[in-house]
């Protein structure tokens, strides 16, 4: 482990601290949420017919979507929930759109130990 630390250009203590941090966090880089959010989305023709461009969290914080990573349906019986994995350029988020109720929720936030 210590050899590996040197090989990757880190000091031994940096590697050790990184591993301890991950152990303490139980490797969990994701925060699972179920937060109603207000979303501005663009609906258009093409392969990606719906793209969220901005959302406002319950705290009032506004997040501008820099890129839509992937949109995919989530299995939930006959009801379709669309998951949008997006990023603001620093953090990845998952927004879920309930096509029956027409509501948006923020369900995941991940920073990948930046």
């Amino acid at each position: 482990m210590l050899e590996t630390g040197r090989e990757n250009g880190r000091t031994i203590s940096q590697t050790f601290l990184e591993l301890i941090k991950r152990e303490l966090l139980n490797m969990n880089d994701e925060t699972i949420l179920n937060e109603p959010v207000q979303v501005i989305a663009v609906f258009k023709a093409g392969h990606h017919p719906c793209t969220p461009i901005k959302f406002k969290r319950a705290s009032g914080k506004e997040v501008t979507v820099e890129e839509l990573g992937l949109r995919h349906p989530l299995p939930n019986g006959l009801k379709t929930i669309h998951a949008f994995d997006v990023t603001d350029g620093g953090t990845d988020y998952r927004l879920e759109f309930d096509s029956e109720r027409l509501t948006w929720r923020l369900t995941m936030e991940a920073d990948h130990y930046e």
Partner: protein
Amino acid sequence: MSNAASSYLPRHHEHNTERPLIMHIDLNSCFATVEQQARPMLRGKPIAIVNRRTDKTAIITASYEAKAKGVKVGMKLREARLLCPDIVALESDPSKYRYVYHKLLDIMRDYSAHVTMKSIDEGVIDFHESSQAIAGRDLVDIGMEIKQRLKDEIGVWMRCNIGISTNRFLAKTAAGLNKPDGLDVITSQNIHTVLSGLKLTDLTGIAHRNQQRLNSVGIYTSLEFLDADPVALRKVVFKSVVGEWWYKRLRGYEVDDIETQVQRVGRQYVLERFDLTRDEIVQRLHHLCESVGSRMRLQEKSARGVYVYAKTLDRGYWHASSLSPLPFFSDQSIYSQVLQLFDNAPDGIREIGLHCYELGPLDMSQLSLFADEITRERHIVEAVDTLNKRFGDRTIHSAGTLGTGIYVRTKIPFGSTRYL
């Protein structure tokens, strides 16, 4: 088209010289690439996909960045973190991979009606019966077009390997020549050059045991394998018609376009902790029974046999099975048989699994003395299945499996696309 059953045996220097019309498409490090597509902040970073986020879990896919640091599929996450401390472990997210699978399938079906998905991340297009507008085009151009469509229709990070040849085996071999994002063609003109750069174990289907068989008759390289005598392959090396199939396969003749029949439906589960009580293990087994029953009915099958196994912490393997005279299909009937069999299972279990076999159609034409009982059971099962289909999996399930859903979630069905 298939030569598998054909008695025709090409002469030693005869290779299939027809136009290559088989295309193999393989998504690169599929699950890791899809996660990097979904989460742009992970692109260019070493990531590993695991089924459970524990140190002892095995890696099911690693990104190319992780592979470059020596991380391999099947390696324990703990070992991977020693090689690559920066690795980000993500739990698999089957709904994403299913979506990408269906998008890939849609794209492939635009080019031919003869598309076969070999697994969740690879498929084959057979252009033999495509329209002239498609088959008349250069297949390399079509390959490039498919690569671009993956980026346009799914996302910019998506990449795939494409191989083109005269049969499925050589097309797959071609797809593996230049990872990632390669596109290669194997023809009768370049087959010797290609094989000269491949070890025996680089060939799909030649693993350690087959390699030993070949070595035992002095075949150490792929070119020597190509030059081998068909009689020796059949009678000495493989001791069956398989030897002849290899002789044809390496010469570009098709022997692998066989449709496989569903023989059994099953599930397995590695316990989340190894100190669970017997009741807790049985609860998880019950969950597996419900899952297997649901899958079986989805395919409109019933079964007559059930097989249950347990792997123990001391690397032991226990199994038991029972065969019934009448077909069964309900979760309850599977569970009651499994429960009876599991009574004899040993202690110290680390993995459990079961499968149903002797499958037949769910519509039972033969009535038995118990027909009324079976009909009533079937109506109940149908009502439960309808509700679960309408409101989502496991909306209704037995009280015995309450709370097991967070552990025994469905993971990625490797090697099978039946439930996608």
